C-alpha cells in the first residue's frame, strides 16, 4: 500500500509539472496565432490593421501579469475549460478534441494492445522453441518489417490491397452513407471493416519489436534454476512456459507497453493521414501549423495525462504480477 501511495504521489507531482510546462512553452515561442491568422487574411489586400488587435482580443491574448494568467490557466485546466480554438474559431477546444479523440483511442489503442499481445505470445514461443522456424524465420521477418518506415508500408498496403484489389475500404472510419449509431450492428460492422487495414499496418510494423523484446527476456529467464526445477517436478511444458517463465519475462515489456499506450493519442499521425481516419494526431499537426495554442495545449495535456495514467496502471499491474514489489 505504501508503494502505491508513493507512486500516486509521484504522479501527482509529475502532473503538476506537466501543467506548468504546458503553460510556459507556448508563451516562449515567437509569433502568435492572431498574427498568423491576420497574416493569412491580409494577403487579400483588404484587411484593416485594426483587425489584428481585434483578433488578439477575440482570441484572448490580453496582456496581464504572468502569475495572474497562470492562476487563471490552472483553474481553467482543472475545470476542464480549455478555451476556444484559434484555428477553428469560435469552436471550443473541447469540441474539437472530442470529435476525433474517440476514433484515435479506439483504433490506435486497440491496434497497440493487439500488437503487444501477438508480439509477446510470438516472442514466448520463439524463445521456448529457439532455433526452430519461429525463431529463425518469423522473428527476422518481423524485425525487418519493424524497421521499414511506417508511412511506406501503409501507402503500399493502401495502394495494393484497398485501391488495387478493393479488398478493404480506402479511407474513413465507417461507410459514408451510414449514420453514427453505436446500437446498429451494420454500423459496428462498418467500423470494424474500415479499421482492419489501418490496424493491420500498425500491427505489422510494431509486432516485431515486442516479439524481439519478449524473446530476449524469456531466454534470460529460461536459464534460471526455478524453470529447470519446475520441469523436473513434472509440470507440463505449457504451464511452465506461460505461468512461470512468461509471467516474469513480461515485466520489462510492460513498462514499454505503458509508454506506448500513453502515446496512443498523439502518435498515430501517419496512419490517420494515409487512411483519412478522423483522429487527433493529425488535428495536433494542423494545430501546430496554425499556431493554435489553446488547441495545442489541450491536446498536449491529454497526451501528458494519458502517459501518466498509463504508467500508473502499469505500476498497479506490477504490484499484481511481481510479489517482490509488494
Amino acid at each position: 500500500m505504501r508503494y502505491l501511495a508513493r507512486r500516486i504521489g509521484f504522479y501527482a507531482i509529475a502532473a503538476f509539472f506537466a501543467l506548468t510546462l504546458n503553460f510556459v512553452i507556448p508563451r516562449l515561442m515567437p509569433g502568435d496565432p492572431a498574427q498568423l491568422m491576420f497574416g493569412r487574411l491580409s494577403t487579400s489586400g483588404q484587411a484593416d490593421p485594426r483587425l489584428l488587435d481585434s483578433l488578439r482580443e477575440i482570441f484572448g491574448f490580453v496582456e496581464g501579469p504572468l502569475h495572474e494568467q497562470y492562476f487563471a490557466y490552472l483553474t481553467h485546466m482543472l475545470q476542464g475549460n480549455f478555451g476556444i480554438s484559434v484555428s477553428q474559431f469560435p469552436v471550443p477546444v473541447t469540441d474539437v478534441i472530442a470529435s476525433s479523440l474517440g476514433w484515435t483511442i479506439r483504433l490506435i489503442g486497440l491496434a497497440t494492445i493487439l500488437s503487444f499481445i501477438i508480439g509477446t505470445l510470438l516472442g514466448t514461443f520463439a524463445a521456448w522453441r529457439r532455433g526452430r522456424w519461429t525463431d529463425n524465420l518469423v522473428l527476422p521477418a518481423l524485425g525487418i518489417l519493424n524497421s521499414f518506415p511506417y508511412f511506406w508500408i501503409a501507402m503500399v498496403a493502401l495502394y495494393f490491397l484497398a485501391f488495387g484489389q478493393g479488398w478493404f475500404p480506402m479511407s474513413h472510419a465507417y461507410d459514408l452513407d451510414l449514420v453514427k449509431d453505436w446500437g446498429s450492428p451494420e454500423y459496428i460492422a462498418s467500423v470494424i471493416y474500415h479499421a482492419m487495414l489501418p490496424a493491420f499496418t500498425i500491427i505489422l510494423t510494431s509486432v516485431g519489436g515486442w516479439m524481439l523484446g519478449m524473446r530476449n527476456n524469456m531466454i534470460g529467464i529460461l536459464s534460471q534454476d526455478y524453470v529447470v526445477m519446475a520441469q523436473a517436478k513434472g509440470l507440463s511444458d505449457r504451464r511452465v512456459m506461460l505461468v512461470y517463465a512468461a509471467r516474469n519475462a513480461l515485466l520489462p515489456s510492460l513498462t514499454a507497453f505503458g509508454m506506448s499506450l500513453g502515446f496512443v493519442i498523439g502518435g498515430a499521425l501517419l496512419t490517420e493521414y494515409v487512411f483519412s481516419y478522423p483522429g487527433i494526431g493529425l488535428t495536433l499537426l494542423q494545430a501546430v501549423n496554425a499556431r493554435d495554442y489553446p488547441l495545442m495545449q489541450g491536446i498536449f495535456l491529454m497526451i501528458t495525462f494519458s502517459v501518466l495514467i498509463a504508467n500508473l496502471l502499469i505500476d498497479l499491474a506490477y504490484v499484481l504480477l511481481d510479489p517482490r514489489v509488494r
Partner: protein
Amino acid sequence: MSRKLSLALVIVLALSLVLSVATVVAQDDIPRGGTVVVNESPQAAWVRNFSPFAPNPLQPTLNLIYEPLVLFNPVEGGAPTFWLATGYEYAEDLMSITFTLREGVLWSDGETFNADDVVFTFGLLQANPGLDRGGLMSFVSGVEKVDDYTVTFTLSRVYTQADTYLGGMLPVPEHIWSAIEDPVTFTNDNPVSTGPFTEVVNFSEQVYDLCRNENYWQEGRPYVDCLRYPAFTGNDPVNLALINGEVDWAGNFVPDIDATFVAADPEHHGYDFWPGGGSPWQFYGNTTVAPFDDVAFRRAMSAAIDYQAIVEIAMFDYTVPASPIGLGSRFETSINPDALALGEEYGLGMYNPEFAAEQLDAAGYVDADGDGWRDLPDGGPIEFTIQIVNGWTDVVTATDIIAGNFQDVGINASMTTPDFGEWLNNLQNGTYVASLGWSNYGRFAYNYFRDQIDSTLINAETGFAGGVAWARWSSPETDALINAYNETADAAEQQDIVNQIQMAFVENVPAIPLFYGPQWYEYNSSRFVGWPTAENRYTQGSPWAQGSRLIVATTIHCVDDTSCGQE
C-alpha cells in the same frame, strides 16, 4: 354551334393542351436529385462551424450557404452577376452607393429577405471590427434603409472599388442573429440562410451532408439534393478517391493528371486548370535589401530564369509561362501593348542566360574576389536563399530550378523550405531576401497591380506588408495613379490609368511573374453533368473558388433519373 366551329374549337383546345404540356415538359426535363461528393480543403476531422463571421468556417459557409449581393464571375471580365441584389448605382458625387435588393427571396425558414437584414449585417460589422474581414469600415461610414428593398451606403471617401466589396457582403438574417448574445463566438450550428444548400444533415467528424433549401429563390434549383463533404486529410487520399470515381467535384493538385485521373475513365473524368486564367506565381526579391534594391539586377534576373522548364517540370505542363506584366488570358483586354513591347526591349520574361550575364556585367556585378560567384558593385559578397513553403511540392521544384538558373549565371543562390507560418511571417515582415509567392487577381486587372505596389499596404509603424506587397516597392507616381483609379468611375479613364501602371511595372520590375497559377479543378461526369469544362468555361469550376461555386452548384444536375440514387 356549327360543326365546323366546334371542330375548330376542339382542335384549338387540343393544340393548346399539347403546347402547355410541352412547355411543362420542356421546363421539367432536367433530372433532379442525387448527392454530389465534393472535396473540400484537407482537414483531419470536421468541427461544426458555419459562422460566416469566423476567420475559418467550413468552406461552403461562404458563397454556398450564405449568398452575396453581387457575384463577380471571373470569366465575365468584371461584369457583375446580380444575385441577392438586382442592381446598384453610385451617386453623382461618388460618395454613396445604392443597392436595389431582389424581391421574393426567402430565408430557409420561410421569413422574407429584405433591407432590414442588410442593414443589420452591416451593423454587426460596425460593432465588431474583428468580424470585418473585408475591411469595409475603411471606406464605408454608414448605411440607410430607403425602403424594404433599397439600401444606401454612405462612403467616407470617394472609392470606386466600393461596389465590389459591398457587393461581396453576405447578409445574415436579422430575426435570428439579433437574438444572439455574442455573434463573435456563435458557431451557427444550423444556419438559416438564402443559399441553395442550407440543411445540415448527418454531421459527423468524417463527413457532413449539406442538403437543398426548399425555399430557394431560383425556381426549380438547385437540381441536386445534397452536397456531401467527406473529410480527407491531404492530397494523396483525395487523388486515390478521385481516380476510383468516389469524388464528383474536386479542386486538387493531381500529378500527371492525364495518365492517372483521366486515363482511369476517359469518358467521364475531366479537368480544367484554366491556363492563363489564374494569378501568377512570382519571384519576389526584397527591394529594400541588396542586391534586389537595384532595378538593373532585377531586370537581369528576369532573363536568367528558365520559365519553360518550370512549367514543364515543376507544373507538369498544366499552365503557361507568365508575361512580364503578369496579366493572362483572363485580362486580355486590359493588356497594354506598349508595356509588352517595352518588356521585350528589356528582355524581361524570356530565358536568355547569356543576355542576363551581359546585363549583370554591365551593372557591375562581377566576381571581384575570385571565388566563382558574382559580387556586389561595391565588392561585398552576394549570397542568399530563396524561401518557399515546405510541402508545396510543385513550387518547391520550381524554386529548385530557379536556384539552379541563378547559379548558372554566377549568383550564389540556394533554396530553403520553412513551414507556412514562418514563410508568411518572413514575407510580411521583410525578413527575407528572395522568395516565391502567389499574387492576387481581383475583379479587374488593376487589383493585380495594386495589391503589390500600393504603399498604403505597408504599415508605417510596424513595417507589416499586407496584400502581396512583399517586394516593398512603391513610388509616388504609382501611388498617385492608384488614388486616381479609385476616384473615377469612368471605364476608359480607369483603363488609361492601368496602362500607365503597366508601364511603371515593366520599368521597375517589382516582382518577376513566373507562370499563371493553375486553378485546380477536376470533375466526374458519370453521375452529374453541367460542369464547366475547357470547351464550355461558363465559370471557373474549383469548389474552393468563392467567386464561382454558387454558379456551379446551381447548374449541375444528375445525368438521368436513376443514376444518382434517386428513389
